[in-house]
């Protein structure tokens, strides 16, 4: 299991806007093993969606510059032609988008939307594609798949539609499934169903999964590693347990502490992060979090901290004044 499925190196995505270049993703590097689930966490505007779309090669054709490298199973996505990328979409990498209401064609039967990939990419004939599509619908837990094959998306609930979207993504057995906020907008009980389904499919189909989300609850128990993003950069990364329990970057701690917990007593005062995320058009040379950070020194405002290794293997953080290590204090 040492072979890396995905290697991202110094990846940057910059949009040309009227207000100047906007670095949505800035020098991001990480990798992903086979059959691993990685979580990418961040608030809105942190670049997590742009990062996942850049890895897919889905950025717009104009007004965008991508540098660095992202290789999926040996295929370099950055700079590849549309035609070449079409060869890996579906079979190597597939994506589940956030909004199940809009990522399906409302006037096309759901069966046809799954068939499409099978017939075009795998060259199946009509009957074989239909049989496989029904199999996929069954796989994602849609009741009475034979009847549902002819249903329109509007006849299904949000949770069912997200299952259909997952079925289309799985049609060509991708090795990497990117799920961008797959459960945002779904009810909690439906969210639990979809996350369990993704877990189960990952094991059964031996896929790797990247779970992009703003919700720390989603990644806490579902991922083995986490990448925390802020203002387009990775500020902390490591094994899920290390990031949750032994984080060194003040932003990670602030993010964890500001989310209310079910186990808190009612009227627990929440810890807040003062201020707002920075304007990406007008970033300082220093740490992007420095203006909101209570530990910030002059150095933080002037020089950008690089990712440096922490005590645990694979754990790294970008901070000049990291939180003290909590190793030993809590033994887990």
């Amino acid at each position, binding site marked *: 299991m040492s072979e890396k499925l995905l290697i991202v190196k110094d990846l940057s995505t910059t949009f040309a806007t009227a207000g100047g270049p906007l670095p949505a993703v800035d020098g991001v590097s990480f990798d992903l093993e086979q059959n691993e689930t990685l979580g990418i966490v961040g608030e809105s505007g942190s670049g997590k969606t742009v990062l996942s779309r850049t890895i897919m090669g889905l950025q717009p054709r104009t007004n965008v510059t991508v540098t660095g490298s992202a290789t999926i199973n040996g295929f370099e996505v950055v700079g590849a032609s549309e035609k070449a990328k079409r060869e890996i979409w579906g079979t190597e990498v597939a994506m589940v988008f956030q909004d199940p209401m809009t990522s399906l064609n409302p006037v096309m039967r759901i069966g046809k939307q799954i068939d499409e990939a099978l017939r075009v990419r795998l060259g199946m004939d009509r009957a074989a594609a239909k049989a496989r599509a029904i199999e996929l619908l069954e796989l994602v837990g849609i009741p009475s798949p034979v009847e549902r094959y002819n249903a329109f998306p509007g006849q299904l609930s949000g949770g069912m539609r997200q299952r259909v979207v997952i079925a289309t993504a799985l049609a060509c057995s991708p090795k990497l499934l990117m799920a961008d906020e797959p459960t945002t907008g779904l009810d909690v009980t439906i969210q639990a169903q979809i996350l369990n389904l993704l877990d189960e499919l990952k094991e059964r189909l031996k896929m790797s999964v990247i779970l992009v989300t703003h919700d720390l609850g989603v990644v806490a128990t579902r991922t083995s590693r986490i990448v925390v993003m802020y203002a387009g950069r990775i500020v902390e990364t490591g094994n899920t347990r290390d990031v949750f329990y032994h984080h060194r970057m003040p932003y990670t701690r602030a993010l964890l502490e500001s989310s*209310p917990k079910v186990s808190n007593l009612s009227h627990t005062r929440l810890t807040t992060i003062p201020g707002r995320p920075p304007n990406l058009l007008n970033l300082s040379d220093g740490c992007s979090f420095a203006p909101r950070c209570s530990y910030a020194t002059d150095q933080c405002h002037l020089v950008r901290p690089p990712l440096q290794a922490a005590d645990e293997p694979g754990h790294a953080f970008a901070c000049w004044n990291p939180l003290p290590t909590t190793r030993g204090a809590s033994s887990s």
Partner: protein
Amino acid sequence: MTDTRQPLLRVTDLTVTFGHHHHAVSAVAGVSFEIFEGETLGLVGESGCGKSTTGKALMRIVEPTSGTIELGGVDVTKQRGRALRNARTHMQMIFQDPISSLNPRRRVKDIVAEPIDCWKTVEGAERDALISDLLSKVGIDPQVYGNRYARQFSGGQCQRISIARSLAMRPKLLICDEMVSALDVSVQAQILNLLEDLKAEYGLTLLFIAHDLAVVKNVSDRVAVMYLGKICEIGPADALYDAPAHPYTKFLLGAALEADPDSPMHSQVLEGEPPSPMNPPTGCRFRTRCPNATERCANEEPLPQEMAPGHLVACHYPLSITRR
């Protein structure tokens, strides 16, 4: 709760039905609850359970089909014209989408002043002072931002402006409908803390409607859980979360994700989806998904029964209240 406190709001058998005859959807199907002065009642449930419709019916934004709403002892259900306008000054609502609930082409101070100018409660310099005070209270500097347009603000700031506007009439009851669900966690925490501060300062009573169980627990004294138009359980927040008596509440809590890798994974996941409110199940509305359902649940609608003081559950077979 045999309480000596007076309920500020008493809702009895409230129903809201949309459409007629075969197309009738009973969004709220007989909901009763009280909110005591100075307390926060959380109302949770999944989408389509009727929690927002309940909030809107209290404000008479949608008309209740039957039932009564009493605010401070006065029946406001059938009020019209001037009397209704008067009653509404005591209740204000904050909506989910902070950006679309403010007019993008108006200045912030005019938005906040709107209710004051309608009612002419204060005028002239006193009015301007009040607006500046309200804006400072919610953390918006009136000198710097008062003349800006609503479109120039972020979601969190817009929600602050909405709060300032809702406080302008010094309401007794504030209805918050998913007011933080569109915000990032760091901003959400700021708004929730602000709400707690203002509640203490203005002596507000809150109905806090949300789908996020952790958020609701954080702000509420008592919590009501809705499923398909009915309240299935209501009780003190800590007790209800610690020991849910209704199977639905238990599933709902089990599905909530804690930001903690060591939190126990609940193997039991609620299967299926809520049935259509156009054709609700007979008897108990949760029986089609409930693992404990029997024939009795199909024939007989469970009535709210008291499990512990103030803790009511509408279930024939409530889970025994044992602390987790």
